[in-house]
């Protein structure tokens, strides 16, 4: 059957069965008799999109709840023996872990996993998810005080896998567009650098008043800690870690990965905690904590919390989206000028950035 003829047959079927006003069972049109699997797969695709569109147009949670209630009423009416029910309960506990369903684990709360290889496997899965070029937005909070002090909202972090990020706080924006890092400070030129090391210079950070970078810049061989993949890499290399089973929050089960830094690399956070969806491995919260004085209840912490998804245009990861078009731009050659005092960068005419 030629492509044209199979398409014609599939289209004819859709006309009569999918897009007919009358009930298909009354239409008198016979079911397709095509032996061509291509026709039937095409029909299946049309049926699927039709069903998805109908579902999207009729999102009625009460309707679904009523269906679930009817199902459960029928099941309860069957009244299985207690032994059978208990056996099913045991079977379902493993399903609960698999399916990340709700309600139940509220009574269990945190169950510690002592299995190191399991933790390593989970970390690898988190890394895999973090590498995907999916846009995720996190709210950034900061706390610089005693333990249990409240966190203050600082701004937003936009992440796109390993290729892009944007940190937008009240007086500046920092980002990476895949090729280069950029900073849009409140005043002065936009700074571009191929190497994040330049921004890691204490004098540069002070000049640009990039307070957050003081926390999130790490040693020269790493990208900054605002990228989840970098955090995972740090945990793999420099931390002891374990995974703890979490509780359902009404929609999902969030497990926790807690990591304690080994003594060697003191620039990294003392501890890192990740809360991630047990099923999808999407990270919902990251908390990086630096103990100001070891063994004292003083610390500062940065926390990222997953925000509702937004459509993020490719352009958002470019510096031009974060400042006025006439803003001066200063490209810094990292190799040549990294060691030079940042203050020696020629002052340029100041312009106000569009940093919200």
């Amino acid at each position, binding site marked *: 059957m030629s492509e044209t003829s199979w398409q014609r047959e599939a289209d004819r079927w859709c006309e009569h*069965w999918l897009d007919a006003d009358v*009930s298909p069972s009354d239409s008198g049109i016979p*079911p397709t008799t095509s032996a061509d699997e291509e026709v039937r797969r095409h029909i*299946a*695709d049309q049926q699927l999109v039709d069903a998805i569109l109908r579902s999207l147009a009729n999102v009625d949670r009460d309707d679904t709840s009523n269906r679930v209630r009817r199902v459960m009423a029928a099941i309860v009416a069957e009244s299985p023996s207690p032994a059978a029910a208990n056996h099913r309960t045991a079977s379902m506990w493993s399903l609960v872990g698999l399916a990340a369903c709700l309600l139940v684990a509220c009574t269990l709360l945190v169950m510690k996993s002592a299995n190191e290889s399991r933790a390593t496997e989970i970390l690898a899965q988190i890394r895999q998810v973090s590498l995907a070029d999916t846009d995720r937005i996190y709210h950034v909070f900061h706390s610089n005080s005693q333990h249990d002090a409240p966190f203050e909202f600082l701004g937003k972090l936009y992440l796109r896998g390993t290729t892009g990020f944007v940190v937008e706080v009240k007086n500046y924006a920092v980002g990476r567009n895949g090729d280069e890092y950029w900073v849009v400070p409140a005043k002065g030129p936009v700074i571009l650098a191929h190497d994040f090391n330049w921004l890691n210079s204490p004098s540069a950070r002070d000049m640009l008043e990039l307070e957050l970078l003081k926390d999130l810049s790490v040693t020269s061989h790493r990208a900054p800690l605002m990228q989840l993949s970098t955090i995972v890499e740090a945990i793999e290399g420099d931390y002891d870690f374990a995974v703890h089973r979490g509780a359902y929050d009404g929609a999902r089960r969030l497990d926790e990965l807690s990591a304690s830094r080994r003594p060697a690399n003191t620039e990294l956070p003392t501890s890192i905690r990740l809360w991630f969806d047990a099923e999808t491995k999407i990270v919902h919260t990251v908390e990086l904590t630096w103990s100001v004085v070891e063994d004292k209840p003083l610390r500062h912490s940065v926390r990222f919390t997953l925000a509702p998804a937004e459509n993020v245009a490719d352009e958002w990861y470019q510096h031009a989206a974060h400042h006025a078009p006439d803003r001066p731009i200063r490209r810094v050659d990292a190799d040549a000028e990294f060691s030079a005092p940042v203050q020696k960068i020629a002052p340029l005419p100041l312009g106000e950035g569009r940093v919200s």
Partner: protein
Amino acid sequence: MPDAHKLFEALVREHAEMLLVYLRAALSNTSDVDDLFQETMIVAWRRLDDFDESRPFGQWLRGIAKRLVLAHHRRQGARPCDSVILDQLDARIGHLAAQPGDTWQEKLALLPNCIQSLPDHFRHAVRLRYFQQQPIAQLVESLEASEAAIKKRLQRARALILECIQKNLNRLGFSV
């Protein structure tokens, strides 16, 4: 230990929307959808001990639903439906179910953008047909086009929506 019924109810709630899409795609009659939804879940409850925990629960549910749908079609002789069609539906829905997201709606988060990106005359037809639930006869009047042209637009729009979903998921490293 929490009640087995409550545990199962949580599973039913989590997979309800996905299963409803599968059944709506396979069945033309709304009351059949309701009946087979209930029947699928009851069979799943009875056969829970047979579930292979290494496989996704949703896929297992669709396997049960497939057998029930085929039996239903044998009895009714209605809408075209066979193993090839149901396997294709199962594969497509399986990939969608594997997308990030905690609910079926979240997994289909890119769908509104795909609808939005349709050419105007396709998007308009989709909006009237699905979101305003107009019969074809009314679309003929609203859009001042022949019935055949309206149906062709809807078919093409559905094909473009699926293409859009595939393209986006391929970009993200998934396939549908």
